[in-house]
């Protein structure tokens, strides 16, 4: 039987798993949980956005007629994509290294990845302010070394937001990548090379496609989490770095305008689902894998 390279298992192995036919009783508690805590509130949010107190579309009209809100939506998506891309570029080699070093070294390296993960992200965000600000460690060092003459502006702008978010979200990229790479059969890479492929070719033709499920999982994870953040952009960003969840939080928690807040939340949801639809169309969501 021809092995299915994408899933790393043969069709026979798949059949051996628990069959999902009819109603799987074991899934019922989880299903009830999802219904109560996700589907029901979501329907409430939908109603909130169009009933105020009788049917109205004014919240959506407000959102789409104020250029500011569309701009914030665009900033949010742009920031999310940029953060995802940078996390991928930085995280891929790290994950590759984790997957290829001996166990003892790997455990140590994994601690380095996980340690910041366990520290409050608020603490890490404040730490970036200390490092990046005008009188901060980085600027002072660069000034002392004579590399720059004026302090650089690295915080309270988009640069600060990107740094802060990448730092917080990098583990979400590295871990899925690592768990997929760890299970890639390196003999396949070796055989490609023994058949005459250059290291570059054997990477791009064999290893990279096999790691794609990890890339997809990590990227989607990082993208979705990053567009939902609002504390990091609020602390590290400037006037042009408002993210959409800041608007939602403001409307729900401070303005008590649940109608408008719900409408913004639904717009964000639809946009994200739209992006996922495009992703699925061109890459295939079934390729996502968080592990073997």
């Amino acid at each position: 039987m021809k092995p299915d390279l994408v899933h790393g298992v043969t069709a026979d192995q798949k059949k051996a798993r628990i069959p999902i036919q009819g109603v799987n009783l074991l899934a019922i508690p989880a299903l009830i949980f999802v219904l109560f805590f996700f589907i029901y509130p979501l329907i409430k949010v939908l109603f909130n956005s169009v009933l105020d107190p009788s049917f109205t579309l004014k919240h959506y009209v407000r959102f789409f007629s104020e250029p500011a809100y569309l701009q914030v939506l665009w900033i949010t998506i742009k920031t999310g994509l940029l953060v995802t891309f940078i996390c991928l570029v930085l995280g891929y080699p790290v994950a590759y290294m984790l997957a290829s070093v001996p166990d003892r070294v790997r455990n140590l390296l994994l601690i380095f990845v996980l340690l910041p993960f366990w520290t409050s992200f608020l603490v890490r965000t404040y730490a970036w302010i200390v490092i990046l600000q005008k009188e901060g460690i980085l600027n002072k060092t660069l000034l002392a070394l004579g590399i720059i003459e004026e302090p650089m502006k690295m915080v309270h702008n988009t640069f600060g937001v990107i740094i802060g978010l990448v730092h917080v979200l990098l583990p979400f990229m590295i871990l899925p990548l690592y768990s997929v790479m760890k299970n890639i059969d390196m003999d396949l890479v070796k055989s490609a090379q023994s058949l005459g492929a250059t290291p570059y070719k054997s990477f791009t033709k064999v290893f990279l496609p096999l790691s794609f499920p990890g890339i997809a999982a990590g990227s989607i994870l990082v993208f979705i989490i990053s567009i939902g953040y609002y504390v990091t952009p609020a602390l590290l960003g400037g006037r042009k770095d408002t993210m959409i969840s800041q608007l939602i939080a403001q409307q729900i928690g401070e303005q008590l305008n649940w109608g408008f807040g719900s409408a913004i939340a639904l717009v964000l949801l639809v946009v994200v689902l739209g992006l996922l639809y495009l992703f699925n169309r061109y890459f295939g969501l079934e390729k996502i894998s968080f592990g073997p």
Partner: protein
Amino acid sequence: MKKWSKWLGFSVIFILVLSLAACGGNTKDETGSAPTENSSPDKTSDGGQLVVVSWGGAYQDAQRKAMFEPFKQETGVNLVEDSPVDIGKLKAMVKGENVQWDVVDVLGMDVPKLVSEDLLEPIDYTIVDKTDMLESAVGEYNVDIDYYSTVLSYNNENLPNGKAPESWADFFDKEKFPGTRALYKSPITTLEIALLADGVAPDQLYPLDVDRAFNKLDSIKNEIVWWEQGAQPVQLLSDKEVVMAVAWNGRIASAAKEGQPLAFTYDDGILDSEAWVVPKGAKNKETAMKFIQFASQGKPQAELLNEIPYGPTNKKAFDFMEESYARSLPTYPDNFDKQIILDVNWWNDNFETINDRFQEWLLK
């Protein structure tokens, strides 16, 4: 099979998307600390139940000492604390008809919003005595606890010409004070400050001339660092990241007390209050009124504000303070007269459209 894993992928992502809102934190953290809960009943006597909600941190610690514990001692009420304050949560409780809170410490500017949404119980003035209270501090649905002021502050060790800024006009003067300045990321108080800087007389401020305010703000637009939490301006000043900052007086005074070289002026400061309110449908309404009466007396107010430099709303509170300290507080008559009271009702009527414009202006 393939279809199933696809659906599984979809559902995982769907759930992730739905949990978007969980990726933040508490944006309105007044005093910046973890929730505290104090549920140990001190007395066994049947004095009733009461849930009081405040902002956590040093502020709530001081309230516990000055108001919560003495009230428990005196009445035997089993007073339980919660934090932080979240008016979104308050609305959810009232709408869901499951009100867990009895007395809540909210910002004065939030009161009209809560009233217009019909989320509050009227204050029972047969129980609450307003004789010694400031006139501006007692409303139909609120009894103010203290006043805080939005003031012009600076770091004494970081003055560009060795001269301290004295007025909002100085705040907008790029020649005299080159460098960045920090402002609160909200149109509330920001527009007032711009108009005062532009020469509008304090008593002519409302209704705000919004166009004029935005014009004035344009002149320093690229020199502004925007902050959203009260601790930020203190840190921006201490780190010399900005030359001046709009800040809340208590924050600057506390930092100065701890030895930071920070200072501020009350000239044209903008006063807003913190207020006790009772959510509609609170389970222990009557005990709540009794608590508000207790907490609004001069002595407990003085004990709270001896530790937190905000201004009392009970005129008698100054009698329980050292005079030099009393003089430093925002509602001390000399300081009170120099300042402006935020028109929370005007803002309640106009916030929505002005905030849309503010957000747009920020991005341009």
